[in-house]
């Protein structure tokens, strides 16, 4: 049995089975992560290839456990169509975290997102991994269709 780590990465958990806690059915596999506009937490998981014909979403609040082998969700009824604006934008590929441009509030670009690490208990992002290094989630200001906007690293002594 795989021990369930507290911090996982998007790339690592992509494709993981999503199982309903009430009937033990496989709802599908994780296809995409839908991040909220602040860029700080997972709003929902887009899942596909299981019980449902087309891609659907389950809100993070309906995830009961994010395990190393499977993600447990409350029930099959927690799954819904990708109808919210955010879900739709993600499904259409307009908003995504990985391969998104990193743009600092100074107007300087800083590479591209390659991965993100999150807390499996809360769905909060811990760090954003980019081709130029790691950025703590505390520096993220927003995630939109153009860029992930981040504050530049502090240059003075840490407060």
């Amino acid at each position, binding site marked *: 049995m795989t021990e369930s780590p507290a911090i996982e990465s998007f790339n690592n958990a992509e494709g993981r089975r999503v199982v309903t806690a009430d009937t033990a059915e496989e709802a599908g596999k994780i296809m995409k992560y839908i991040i909220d*506009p602040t*860029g700080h937490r997972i709003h929902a998981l887009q899942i596909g290839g299981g019980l449902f014909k087309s891609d659907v979403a389950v809100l993070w609040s309906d995830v009961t456990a994010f395990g190393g082998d499977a993600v447990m969700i409350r029930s099959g009824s927690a799954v819904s169509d990708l109808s919210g604006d955010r879900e739709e934008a993600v499904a259409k590929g307009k908003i995504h975290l990985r391969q998104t*441009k990193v*743009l*600092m*509030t*100074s*107007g*300087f*670009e*800083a590479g591209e997102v390659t991965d993100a690490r999150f807390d499996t208990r809360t769905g909060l992002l811990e760090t954003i991994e980019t081709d130029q290094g790691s950025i703590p989630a505390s520096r993220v*200001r*927003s*995630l*939109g*269709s*153009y*860029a*992930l*906007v981040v504050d*530049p*690293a502090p*240059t003075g002594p840490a407060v």
Partner: protein
Amino acid sequence: MTLLMRASDLMGLPVVSIDTGEDVAEIRDVVYDASTHRVLGFTLNKRGFLGGRLKSNLAISSIHAVGPQAVMVPSESDVLEERPDDEAVSAPSTAVIGHRVLNAAGSELGQVVGVIVEAGSSAAAVGYEVEPPDGSGRLFVPISMQMALSSDNVLLPEGAEAFVRHDLGAFGAAVSEYRSSETQAQPSQSQPPSASGAPAAPPPQPNQPPAGSASDPSAPSTGDPS
């Protein structure tokens, strides 16, 4: 040392809102007033293939920062809503492109072909790009508060000529040196009087550019919108 950019490289840059990560507009023109040596703001185009002119202008006071790849505003409403300062951006302002640059001795250095600005929150204008009359390489001359300006000519004060450079990379360092020399030249204006009446040490430079995360300063920024 802060990154220097040609004002013309700002044209076409996306205007991105910090609160949503969306590109809400793009820069059409930089509005520069030579009499005050200030970028007043920008006129805007809509983003996208069919983007025409956006009605509202963007005053410099609404901007969080100007960088080589984007102009950042705090929120989408800074672009979409009219702000009191936006009116001033379209008011007639003193132009400088095409002006002859003369030195104190009466020699012509060339004609102004562009304005050089600093990356940062105010896009401070720090120099002019000048095309010499003999067709030799372009020059960068520092903007000085003492620059005399008429409808045809710009006069480079005597102290400024030593800081003229032939490439943008070297010009950045020259601008910093020029500013500290300008400050030291006027100690009575910038220091509190010392008790003994003796001149005090040079004060900290009030306009010290912030140490930004500058990309290679010797490479002219492309300003290409992605």
